[in-house]
């Protein structure tokens, strides 16, 4: 069964993975310090454009993957809107109390969550784990023993998924009676966790021994992939800086929401 997505490589794939990781973490941090809903709404365009036009994945796949994030947007925005505090009441009905402040705060939180999600998705869709770990070893000096263990672990995941399907079929055929209430949760955990974990632990142990048998140790090693910095990293840096700059400028100069700082009482 196929677990990987087909895609075409684009320039976003060729960014240095370690640079990409650090840069995205910085963007996450920056997003936390933006309190103007105008700006954060504008910023959403920056990752969205990249995601839609530069990941090399099929549009259909992208849209399906983005669906849960829209849900995330609406759920985080709406809960803040409906139940948040504020003084200028717009609408009140039972527990639901929408005020001007809570509305903007909700919108702001929604867009922040959406931005996190889009950036995360952009990273995940354009970064091969193997390149990321090679880059982490070489650029950020992560010890190889951790990086290679992670790569081996990533390989186990699809096998586990397949085993999960087999296990589900086996339990179905055995006709396991589902218990009621909270017991059902513990029952499910033991029924699935014990066989899957016992298989995985044994497999992980065997892989570890096989890696040592291939003389994997702490000695000096060379690398098959040597991720470097290229013009694409510069391009990406320029794109985000300009994109964020424009978003800030437009948000400040042409605000379309009344609120410019959601923290203000």
């Amino acid at each position, binding site marked *: *069964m196929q677990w*990987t997505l087909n895609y075409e490589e684009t320039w976003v794939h060729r960014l240095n993975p370690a640079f990409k990781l650090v840069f995205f973490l910085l963007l996450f941090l920056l997003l936390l310090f933006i309190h103007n809903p105008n700006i954060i709404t504008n910023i959403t365009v920056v990752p969205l454009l990249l995601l839609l036009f530069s990941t090399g994945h099929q549009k259909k796949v992208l849209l399906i993957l983005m669906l849960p994030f829209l849900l995330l947007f609406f759920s985080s925005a709406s809960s803040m809107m409906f139940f948040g505090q504020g003084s200028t009441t717009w609408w009140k009905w039972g527990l639901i109390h929408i005020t001007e402040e809570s509305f903007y705060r909700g919108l702001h939180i929604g867009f922040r969550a959406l931005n996190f999600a889009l950036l995360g998705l952009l990273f995940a869709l354009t970064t091969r784990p*193997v390149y990321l770990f090679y880059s982490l070893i070489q650029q950020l000096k992560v010890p190889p023993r951790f990086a*290679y263990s992670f*790569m*081996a672990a*990533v*390989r186990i995941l*699809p*096998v586990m998924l397949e*085993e999960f399907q*087999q*296990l589900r*079929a*086996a*339990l*179905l*055929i*055995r*006709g*396991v*009676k589902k218990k009621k209430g909270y017991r059902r949760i513990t029952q499910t955990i033991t*029924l699935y966790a014990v*066989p899957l974990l*016992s*298989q995985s632990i*044994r*497999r992980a142990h*065997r*892989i*570890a*021994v*096989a*890696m*040592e*048998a*291939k*003389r*994997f*140790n702490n*000695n*000096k*090693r*060379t*690398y*098959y992939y*040597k991720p470097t910095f290229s013009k694409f990293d510069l391009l990406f840096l320029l794109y985000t800086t300009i994109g964020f700059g424009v978003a800030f400028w437009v948000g400040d100069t042409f605000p379309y929401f009344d609120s410019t700082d959601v923290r203000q009482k």
Partner: protein
Amino acid sequence: MKVGVSNLRLKFAGAPSLQFEDLSLHVKESEKILFLGPSGCGKSTLLQVLAGLIPNAVPVPMKADDMVICESTGVVFQDPDAQFCMPYVDEEIAFVLENRAVPQHEMNDLIQYYLDKVGLSFQDPHVEISTLSQGMKQRLAISSMIALEPEVIFLDEPTALLDPEGTSEIWSTIKQIEAKQTMIIVEHKIDEVVDFVDRIVLFNSEGKIIADSDPNTVFSFYKHKIREFGIWYPEVWDEHIKETDLPKDIVRGKEVLSVTNLKGYRGKHPKIQAPEISVCEGEWVAITGKNGAGKSSLLLSLMNVMKTSGEIKVSNQLIKTVHDARSQLAFVFQNPEFQFITHSVYKELAYSLEMINDPNVDEKVNGWLTSYQLEHVKLLHPYQLSTGQKRRLSVGTALFGSQPVLLLDEPTFGQDAQNTFKLLQLFEELRAKGLIIIMVTHDEKIVNNYATRQWIIEKGLLVADRNLERVGEGKAYAMDS
């Protein structure tokens, strides 16, 4: 002496006694040695000691008066899915080259070179390992082992989890490795290895060496032992068939299972199609075909675990859901562990009976424990059983009621000769009582000696359905129906 150990003492944590007590073994340069013995005799452990993996990579307490271990060794293990840490073929060999600190610019040529050595030729070796067949995966494992340029090669049951085709593939690959290469081999299926090795070391179940000589000598003096240990030696099938008196004339009873236009879907595409099937009491059907052809899918479709269309009838009862299927068809999975849901052998057998509120649970379970030879382990956790016992228990858990059909997915896969014959005899007893046995198998000997009927599956389609006479190898008299 190339590798060797004198007076080795080794004990596994929690084991009641020493695995090895004062064991000595010496291997000369360019010698090819085969370790033989029953499962659990410690031959793989000794291989790992000589390969330097114990105690460095696998901490097991051990002591030896003298030990010669080679600096550069290469090991191939049995599980094709647990040897690689990289997702792509080129990356896996590159991993070995990286460990050897080979400069990056030489890597691409070397990757090609080592792949050529095992006959894996890809235009671009950047191929996902998960798309390879099990046999190809093991060849890749050999290739990455050769990439270590080892002085001594260790093969730890490299074909245990392969079908006969993959097994031949592996041995012809290994035989192409240079003649002066020192090799230590642990193997249970020795048909293709015997004429290749210079020396056989035979262990008993206590981990003592009982014979150590050239293959001819070992075979002429210790044949009975080799047989008792469940090793697959060349004549084992002939001898087994001679001793077991299999009824040749099969009495086919009334029709039990009938299938029309069965299609099993994975997603929108049919994975398996079987236009028309009718099976009668007392038949033994072997389902054969290439890997991925859809053999297991056929079984899963019959069980309604996959989405299916068409009609399945057992004893004139329509099978529409897994629930219907369970009461009529017993199913044994390839991995028995997935079928276990309780914490003891006894409870495992009692589980399904308690569910249908059977009044004589105790009586029935005790009867089964005897017939599956499990009474001495009835309080153990199913995971603690040996592979043969696990398999028999999984048959027991599946056949809880009076289902007329037993479906088995490669039940003898990876089992030693003793366990295989024990299982086959168990199935034959059931068949003689009128049960229908339908099993997926790669083993031609089972098809020719035990099966009374063969279904061949090709690319998701049941292409041949023929009756067989139980005549043994080479003479399979077939009539296409």
